[in-house]
């Protein structure tokens, strides 16, 4: 059967196509409506959501670090300020072949391959896209100029300025003001992440550390528009940071320099306090170091040099150096003895050159082997007679001695605002039992009476004890901050004043101290003779190596570093004290011979005018009763 031939029916084809076109048109309209519905959903119903999303994309908050507060000395001389420092940054996205750019930097600045390796390491550290990476800090003028000249070869390389802490006085205040340094990982964990979001440096020691909260200030913010690569395009809103508070210190640059000069290059410590206010006028620990080294990160070599130096420049002798106070403690022991009633001003002790406890063989030697004969309290201070104080200490006993000397600040932190002050040690029966599991021996009380044995004090504590003598027991914690934005620092934990049964007891001890310099047989009368005002003082020796019973201290046999430390404390003018000074000269041996002249030089610098006369404001007539007593 042949298939029927189908003829093309154009009409039918056209109808078919038309129906399909209509079907297609319906689908088209339906799908377009679906798109419109989708857009309506996104743009009207979900508008808020997408609006927020797009806004969050665009706007970022950037912290603006506050400017750190300045530090001045008491006369307004700048001790710490902020200086623009220039660092070299490379933005990888704009540098093209950044490794080649590093090569050019090294070539232009004539650096070493080691620097090149360091740069590469810094470049590879984590960062956001388009963030400039600092590769070299503290550019010199010369380096900035070289970069500028070669700028055309250095795409993406910029010299960026930032404020960096600077200490124009360098070594002078390294041990009191301290320094700031880069925030390390441990500090980062403790710090408020918001407050420090823009800050790279933090106070590490000294005043910079203690007053960190006040000096730092409040972080500010900038709302910036950024593109998808994190590049800042413009600032939308800005909240300015609050700069840190300025700090005026009690320290006096001139006195500080004078005190350093007085030490004359020897290792040691000087603390000068104004007794009436507790202001620390000078605080010297020699040798010192340049704090600027630590600000941008000290090089390993420099740090090793400081750390390994036999002179220990990083060691803060004023606050951390612990020394047996030696004979400098005698005036305080005398005051304690009088107040406790174990001695009177008239009590006399015969000194044959040594002291023996009843029923003991051991001889506790006076420094003067031949003995001073009959001595009373004032003479005992003047002559620094050990026998008298052995006797006094024995009569008082350890418990009362501990109580009295503690009230002078021995064995506890005395300062108001100094970072990492050592407590020192004022031994007691309880302390010895806890420390050595041993009972207290009477002989240990005796040597405490002359400032030896377990007792340890910092030069700051000695200075404060001296200021208490000058102040007749009125306690004001020594402090470095004079005012923070005009307000003096507040002592939250004041020490109770030392109130004696009879205030005259102060005068007996003070007269003894005055006779040390001005008495006929005073141990430091050579120093006292040259003074145009009256000084009350006391020498002391801090043993470095113990001397065996029966052995004599022979300086020729002792290595230089094993020689005793020389101590001297004093205040002046003796009748109305304006300055109290404590000096420790490491391995200086003689308190009267080495430390006393240092004390006097510091006092001179404070009290005398340019003509060598007592400044008029310090020259007050002496009360008649004190004059009478002196004879």
């Amino acid at each position, binding site marked *: 059967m042949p298939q029927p031939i189908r003829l093309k029916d154009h009409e039918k084809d056209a109808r078919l196509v038309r129906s399909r076109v209509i079907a297609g048109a319906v689908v088209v309209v339906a799908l*377009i409506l679906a*798109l419109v519905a989708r*857009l309506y959903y996104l743009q009207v119903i979900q508008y808020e959501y*997408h*609006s927020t999303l797009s806004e969050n*994309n665009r706007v970022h908050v950037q912290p603006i670090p506050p400017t750190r507060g300045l530090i001045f000395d008491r006369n307004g001389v700048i001790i710490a300020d902020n200086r623009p420092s220039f660092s070299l940054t490379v933005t990888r996205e704009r540098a093209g072949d950044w490794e080649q750019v590093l090569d050019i930097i090294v070539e232009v600045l004539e650096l070493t391959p080691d620097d090149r390796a360091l740069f590469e390491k810094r470049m590879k550290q984590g960062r956001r896209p388009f963030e400039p990476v600092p590769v070299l800090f503290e550019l010199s003028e010369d380096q900035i100029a070289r970069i500028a000249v070669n700028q055309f070869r250095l795409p993406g390389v910029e010299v960026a300025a930032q404020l960096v802490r600077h200490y124009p006085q360098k070594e002078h205040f390294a041990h009191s003001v301290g320094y700031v340094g880069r925030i390390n990982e441990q500090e980062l964990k403790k710090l408020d992440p918001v407050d420090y979001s823009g800050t790279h440096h933090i106070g590490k020691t000294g005043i910079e550390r203690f007053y960190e909260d006040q000096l730092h200030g409040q972080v500010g913010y900038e709302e910036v528009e950024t593109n998808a690569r994190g590049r800042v395009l413009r600032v939308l809103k800005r909240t300015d940071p609050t700069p840190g508070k300025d700090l005026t210190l009690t320290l006096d640059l001139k006195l500080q320099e004078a005190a350093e000069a007085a030490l004359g290059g020897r290792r040691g410590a000087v603390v000068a306090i104004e007794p009436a206010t507790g202001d620390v006028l000078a605080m010297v620990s020699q040798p010192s170091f340049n704090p600027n080294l630590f600000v941008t990160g000290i090089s390993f070599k420099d740090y090793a040099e400081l750390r390994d130096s036999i002179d220990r420049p990083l060691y803060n002798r004023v606050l951390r150096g612990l020394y047996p106070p030696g004979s400098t403690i005698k005036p305080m022991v005398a005051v304690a003895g009088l107040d406790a009633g174990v001695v009177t001003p008239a009590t006399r002790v015969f000194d044959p050159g040594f002291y023996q406890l009843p029923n003991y063989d051991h001889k506790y030697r006076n420094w003067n082997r031949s003995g001073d004969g009959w001595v009373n309290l004032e003479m005992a201070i003047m002559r620094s007679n050990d026998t008298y104080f052995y006797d006094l200490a024995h009569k008082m006993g350890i418990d009362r001695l501990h109580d009295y000397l503690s009230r002078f600040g021995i064995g506890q932190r005395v300062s108001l605002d100094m970072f990492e002050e050592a407590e020192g040690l004022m031994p007691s029966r309880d302390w010895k039992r806890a420390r050595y599991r041993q009972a207290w021996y009477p002989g240990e009380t005796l040597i405490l009476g002359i400032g030896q044995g377990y007792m340890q004090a910092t030069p700051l504590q000695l200075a404060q004890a001296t200021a208490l003598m000058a102040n007749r027991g009125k306690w004001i914690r020594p402090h470095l901050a004079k005012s923070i934005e005009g307000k003096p620092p507040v002592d939250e934990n004041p020490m109770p004043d030392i109130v004696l049964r009879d205030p005259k007891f102060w005068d007996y001890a003070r007269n003894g101290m005055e006779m040390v310099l001005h008495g006929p047989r005073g141990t430091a009368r050579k120093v006292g003779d040259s003074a145009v005002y009256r000084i009350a003082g006391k020498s002391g020796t801090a043993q470095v190596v113990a001397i065996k019973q029966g052995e004599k201290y022979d300086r020729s046999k002792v290595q230089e570093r094993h020689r005793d430390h020389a101590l001297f404390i004093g205040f002046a003018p003796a009748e109305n004290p304006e300055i109290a000074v404590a000096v420790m000269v490491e391995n200086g041996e003689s308190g009267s011979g080495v430390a006393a002249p240092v004390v006097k030089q510091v006092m001179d610098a404070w009290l005398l005018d340019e003509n060598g006369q007592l400044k008029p404001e310090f020259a007050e007539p002496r009360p008649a009763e004190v004059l009478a007593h002196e004879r």
Partner: protein
Amino acid sequence: MNGNFDRTLSSEDVMRRRASLLQRMHIDGQLLLLLLLLAAGGLFVLYSASGKSWDMLIKQAVSFGVGLTAMIVIAQLEPRFMARWVPLAYLVGVGLLVVVDVMGHDAKGATRWINIPGVIRFQPSEFMKIIMPATIAWYLAKRNLPPRLKHIAISLALIGVPFVLILKQPDLGTSLLILASGAFVLFIAGLRWRWILGAAAAVVPIAVGMWFFVLKQYQKQRVLTFLDPESDPLGTGWNIIQSKAAIGSGGVFGKGWLLGTQSHLDFLPESHTDFIIAVLGEEFGLVGVCLLLLIYLLLIGRGLVVTVQAQTLFGKLLAGSLTMTFFVYVFVNIGMVSGLLPVVGVPLPFISYGGTSLVTLLSGFGVLMSIHTHRKWIAQV
């Protein structure tokens, strides 16, 4: 009879005389107006999307000029002439696709280009966008409608060869468009509904098969990202999250021309090419997108009118397919950017930056104009 004939003649003469310059040039005024509108709007959006690049704007305008020229040239060709040369063009096109597969040049990881330096550089797959429907239309126009199973099978084979070749490039977007353009001819030719439904039912197993055997890793990723863009917000999900944020944050009236933050701050990827509708949505809002959709709808409507009025079956099938394929461009692109469809590389007609697609699209409209303006008036009587 004679009088009638005379009247007809005279009326035709009148029409000829009245015929405007456009008609004599075989150009459809309505289509041209809509295309110029689109192109002008497109350049506005592109200026913003490209980050105020005059360079791109000028290049795009030049491409548009080239496209218009191609359109006018093609409009002069008689549909019968086209039908005669279609089989040869098809063979040449397939041949070029094979050449591309064998020794094509790399561009963006995919091999799509024929490049004879200094002479010509083009994508054979673009060429196939017009040749494909024309070939099927030429084949089916000679058969009785609706097509019988044998003819459908041959048609599918004709579609399948270039489809597979382009898919292998790999260019999923274009291959699907080519498939659609061929399939639309079958649809308009009256492919029976039960077979259409059957094919639709077969999509699921085919899709599963494609997933495991055909799709490349990045294509699978696109589908996964489409299903859950938040699963990888900084990686592959970034595009779609950012484009939705751009459109959504535009609201009803938009942020204003040149004020879109998503595109100007580079959060929106490919903002001047495939994702340009997001820029439009962000800066001109729902109103702007709806206006654009209206113009597209009018274009498609005109295309369908051309289809219905076409005198030859070849013309009807080709015009219908080109129109429907044009719609697929619009729908797939906007659907993808607004998160309705997975990300497939399909540009938005006349708005996205890119000369090749512009020339191809305008050539397609040239074919439509040719079909519409070469009708014989006498034959209709």
